[in-house]
């Protein structure tokens, strides 16, 4: 469905990621592991079109994304839930969700259905639908960010560190919901530092270090790998 072939991205002369190869098949959950600054977010920025690769090619359903602008990429079916729960803080929860359906803005009925879908997934958002997004708690903001990404009805959803800064109990819920979204037919590419929780739901993973992929394999393989255990699971 999505493949990154020999992708390098430079910020000035600094190579943020170098020679990355990633393959995501339809229906999978794929996790990118790595510490801060390892290149996960740059990879996401590149897939969503905000940064352009200096070398390599990105293919989505057989079509090259190299020359497609970020807003067109959303129309093609790649939805992004950016790192740090970037919401529109002054807008209400419902307005945030409606903004997420921007690419479907002419299809009023569909938006209503998607709203229902998100509210069923995150009932707390329905209760708070008229509150300003900025007034929500961290977990609720993350739910809203995921909900907003869902509103564009993506075929592939990019989730950048959904668990960061959340209480363990909420993290668990978050991953359950991600799994549910995946079961309903959305392919998921996930960046995480919480390897333990992420590998439990993922099909396969890639480990980033200093802008390169140093390890890849099925979840089970990575989970059993000593280095991964040492670096990310702490056991």
């Amino acid at each position, binding site marked *: 469905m999505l493949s990154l072939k020999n992708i390098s991205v430079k910020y000035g002369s600094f190579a943020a990621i170098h020679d990355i190869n990633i393959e995501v098949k339809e229906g999978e959950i794929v996790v990118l592991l790595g510490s801060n600054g390892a290149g996960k977010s740059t990879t996401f920025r590149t897939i969503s*079109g905000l940064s352009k690769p200096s070398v390599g090619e990105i293919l989505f359903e057989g079509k090259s994304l190299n020359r497609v602008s970020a807003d067109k990429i959303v129309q093609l079916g790649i939805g992004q839930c950016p790192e740090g729960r970037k919401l529109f803080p002054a*807008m209400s929860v419902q307005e945030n969700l409606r903004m997420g359906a921007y690419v479907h803005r002419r299809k009023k009925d569909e938006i209503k259905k998607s709203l229902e879908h998100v509210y069923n997934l995150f009932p707390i958002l329905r209760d708070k639908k008229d509150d300003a997004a900025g007034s929500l708690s961290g977990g609720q903001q993350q739910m809203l960010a995921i909900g907003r990404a869902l509103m564009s009805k993506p075929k592939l959803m990019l989730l950048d560190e959904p668990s960061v800064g959340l209480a363990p109990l909420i993290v668990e819920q978050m991953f359950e919901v991600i799994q549910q979204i995946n079961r309903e037919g959305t392919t998921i590419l996930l960046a995480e530092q919480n390897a333990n929780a992420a590998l439990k739901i993922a099909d396969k993973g890639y480990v980033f270090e200093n802008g390169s992929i140093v390890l890849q394999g099925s979840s089970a393989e990575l989970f059993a790998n000593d280095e991964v255990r040492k670096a990310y699971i702490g056991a």
Partner: protein
Amino acid sequence: MSKIQRIVILGLILFAIVFPLISNNDYFIHVMTLSFIWMIGVYGLNLLAGYTGYLSLAHAGFFAIGAYSLGLLTVKAEMNFWPALLLSLIITGVLGFFAGLISLRTKEHFFAIYTLCVGYIIYLVIDKWDSLTEGVRGLIGIPAPANIGPLSFETLQSHYYLVLFFLLLVVLIMYRIVHSLSGRTYIAIRNSEDLAQTIGISTMKNKLTVFVISTVIAGLSGALYASFVRFIGPDIGSIAIVFDFLTYLLVGGLGTLSGPIVGTLLIVVLSQRLQFLQDYRMLVFGPVLTLLIIFYPRGIVGTAAAWGQKRRSSVHKTRLNNLPEEQVKEG
């Protein structure tokens, strides 16, 4: 819109309508009409700077383009006022489109500086293109708006109502834009362009649309000015005018719907009151404006709105605090 807001707005409109009837002083009506014209221009600037986050300093230039287009079409081409007005808006919009196409490749302060230059170039062209604009001599004898059936706009009062009509029209358009998906799209762009793009907003297309709308509104303001004052010189395109606009907007409240009205009215009235100080007025305005920007960057309306919101949410919070423990656990 709450009930109180509706009453206040209706009251203000009513006051604006009866104002010329209760005030026998032509001078007041003249000042009021001019303020309305400035307000329209400030609304143009507000849509771009306040809602989309792009501070354009070229707006005096587009104000002047609107004014000169109308002046030249009515004086030199001897066109009827109404088609000339429409045509001047189109001219301003087309020039705005091309200016925006280039300027919007820059961002933030670069955009401000770039548009400052664009505005200055417009001023220079008007000032130096003698054969078309009459240069420093200015354009004289711009006619009052032509009659529409039995309605004539020869008198000061009738002109006042005409300008008021356009002001209300602009406010209504702004209200509709701001409370539509387009308005939220512009706010999303102001928030973060990256984020806007990742939910599928074509930022360039939207920014350009706003730029054109806001220049057209500045042009409308200029055209109304030309037909009201009947004489225009290149000075109306000077940098000083755009900073006047900006001052009105900052004092009133950037990115608020009533900010342009509040700010313009306040400053215009104040500067009329302080006229005995002549140019030393600026000694008063300068420091006051600086303090305002340091302590109340959202202007009068923005600050008042924030206070209102704070009060409401603190009422909400105390109510929450009074709830039994288990009901508040969520979060």
